């Protein structure tokens, strides 16, 4: 779960990473007040949970208070990559001498955190990673040990820093790792870390992506992951406890298991378009499946629903009852094709067939999808 720039910066400051003076605003009037307080010129930045904001026009500079009002107004009216701008961060405009890149993330294949630094900070860092990987220095961190101060200094020296600025940069690197570790982050990033003309280092931007699975350890953040999902159906699904991704087709999908779900989607797309991706996880109950089907059906104009579930850890015979409940209660008319195999499959089939669901008993999902296609071609409900 990604948190907002202003939230990330607050946590950075707790760990003594210098951030620009500034304040959050949700109206042009508030932005005006913040700008007055910190002095002009200012940077005004849309607070959205998505990258590439700068290129999308989400960052403005204002020289006077009139401009502050005007540009704030403009930003607060924007949508960036589907995210509505609900607040803006008004900050002192920095006098930039250099832009550095600092990032901590997890290297899945090595199973440990990795710290990365580059003297080529700014929006082109990914291009640098592709074209000049030698300009990015990184080091693995032993998870139980953390990043030690001398290791941070070594990274700072790799960027050619010496003397006090080297110590200051090493301090920021250490602090960023501390933030990453303390808040169970998947990613902590400062891009750019600005060196001002007076040789101060300031985190001009901040990204922090927290592991949803670890939020229980951080009640102090007061954040519920589900509140951070902008799509309404995705948010609703999250509350039930299933993973849902809204898509642009018309075949509703319910699968148990992400791999099976993706494979199913790959095959449906050979001829049709899925309306969603939905994965139940391993905690299936009657209520969960009923809720999942309700969420899927909320999207209008579905041509059909395809269900593909396995009874491993999941009690599919219980899940089937939830499906049947909804079909009955909501008097579902569109065709539903289901493949359900594994533990207690016979009981499951019976329940589904009891409410008119077309059950495919073969192992191959491909066959079940062919059945779905045939059903729709025939036009029978």
């Amino acid at each position, binding site marked *: 779960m990604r948190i907002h720039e202003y939230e990330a910066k607050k946590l950075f400051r707790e760990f003594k990473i210098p951030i620009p003076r500034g304040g959050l605003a949700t109206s042009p009037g508030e932005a005006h007040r913040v700008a007055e307080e910190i002095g002009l010129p200012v940077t005004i930045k849309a607070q959205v949970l998505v990258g*590439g904001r700068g290129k999308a026009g989400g960052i403005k500079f204002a020289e006077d208070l009139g401009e502050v009002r005007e540009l704030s107004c403009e930003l607060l009216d924007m949508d960036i990559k589907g995210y509505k701008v609900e607040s803006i961060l008004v900050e002192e405009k920095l006098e930039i001498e250099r832009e550095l890149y600092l990032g901590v993330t997890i290297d899945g294949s090595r199973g440990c955190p990795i710290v990365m630094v580059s003297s080529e900070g700014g929006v082109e860092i990914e291009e640098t990673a592709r074209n000049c990987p030698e300009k990015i220095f990184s080091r693995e961190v032993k*998870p139980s040990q953390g990043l030690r101060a001398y290791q941070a200094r070594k990274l700072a020296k790799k960027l050619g820093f010496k003397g006090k600025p080297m110590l200051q940069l090493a301090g920021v690197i250490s602090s960023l790792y501390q933030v990453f570790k303390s808040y169970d982050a998947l990613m902590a990033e400062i891009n750019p870390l600005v060196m001002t003309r007076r040789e101060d280092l300031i985190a001009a931007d901040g990204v922090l992506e927290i592991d949803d699975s670890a939020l229980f*350890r951080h009640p102090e953040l007061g954040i519920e992951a589900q509140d951070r999902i902008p799509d309404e159906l995705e948010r609703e699904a999250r509350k039930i406890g299933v993973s849902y991704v809204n898509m642009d087709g018309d075949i509703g999908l319910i699968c148990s298991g992400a791999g099976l779900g993706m*494979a199913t989607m790959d095959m449906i797309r050979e001829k049709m378009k899925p309306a969603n991706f939905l994965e139940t996880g391993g905690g299936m109950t009657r209520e969960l499946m009923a809720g999942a089907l309700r969420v899927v059906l909320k999207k209008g104009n579905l041509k059909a629903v395809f269900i593909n579930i396995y009874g491993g*850890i999941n009690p599919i015979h219980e899940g089937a009852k939830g499906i049947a409940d909804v079909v009955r209660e909501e008097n579902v008319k569109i065709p539903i094709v289901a493949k359900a*195999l594994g533990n207690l499959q016979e009981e499951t089939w019976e329940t589904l067939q009891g409410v008119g669901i077309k059950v495919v008993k073969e192992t191959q999902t491909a066959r079940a999808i062919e059945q779905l296609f045939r059903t729709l071609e025939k036009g029978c409900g």
Partner: protein
Amino acid sequence: MSILVKADTKVVVHGITGRIGNRQTRLMLDYGTKISAGVTPGRGGEEVWGVPVYDSVSEVIEEHSIDASLVFVPAPFAKDTCFEAMEAGVKLIVLITEHVPVHDAMEIRAMANAEEAVVIGPTTPGIIYPGKMKIGIMPGNMFCPGNVGLISRSGTLTYEIAGNLCDMGIGQSTAVGMGADPVVCTSLTQLLHMFEEDEETHLVVIVGEVGGTEEEKAAQYIKREMKKPVVAYIAGQSVPPGKRMGHAGAIVERGMGSAQSKVRVLKEAGVKVAERPTEVSELVKSILRRGL
């Protein structure tokens, strides 16, 4: 033979008194798994399907011999449970639990390396030695004994592919779910190596998916060292690139991680890559028919 387990591997089930632990214990016993004991702190002295329950692993090993731990405990307790099992000397741990914090998974993996233990998971369906035993949650009826090694990052998709193989008369030596979390404790490459060394395995099937770089790393190993044929399927060909999570992930992966990248490097390593799950069993059959 099989990898990781034997027919008489003795298992302790952590979280045996929970809803899932209880149910899966019954299913494993029915399948033939030797379950020596269960552990649930505070529930020592009870029994689940005739299996004695203890408060701790150290009490179990005073009374029983143990080869493997199967972990069903809730995610916040997964790390402590794995540490407890490893400290007690257990060398194989199957960590079924979903939603284990990634920082915990990294620590579990580091301790497993230090202790020379094998931890499968988290978020794995487990290990099955078809017809003999299983340590995990996969439905036994989808698997059958044979000579194909199966490694999967997904749970349910594995069942489907195993079922397809069985329908064509092709059994499995062992099937292992490696888990699909950002950090898993045993890599695809490590598992490939075990199958490469296993006499009973003639061919290995990889069921991969979009994300991470496990398949890319494995391709290097296959190219360099593997003699046995490998067939793969990568789920998620049609998955649109997800919401970008800043630059750091992209820098680490350097353009790898997409389904397309995985398919390309696996093919370059000589792996037969199926377009859809169904094709896996056909590719396997044609290779096995040619006789190795």
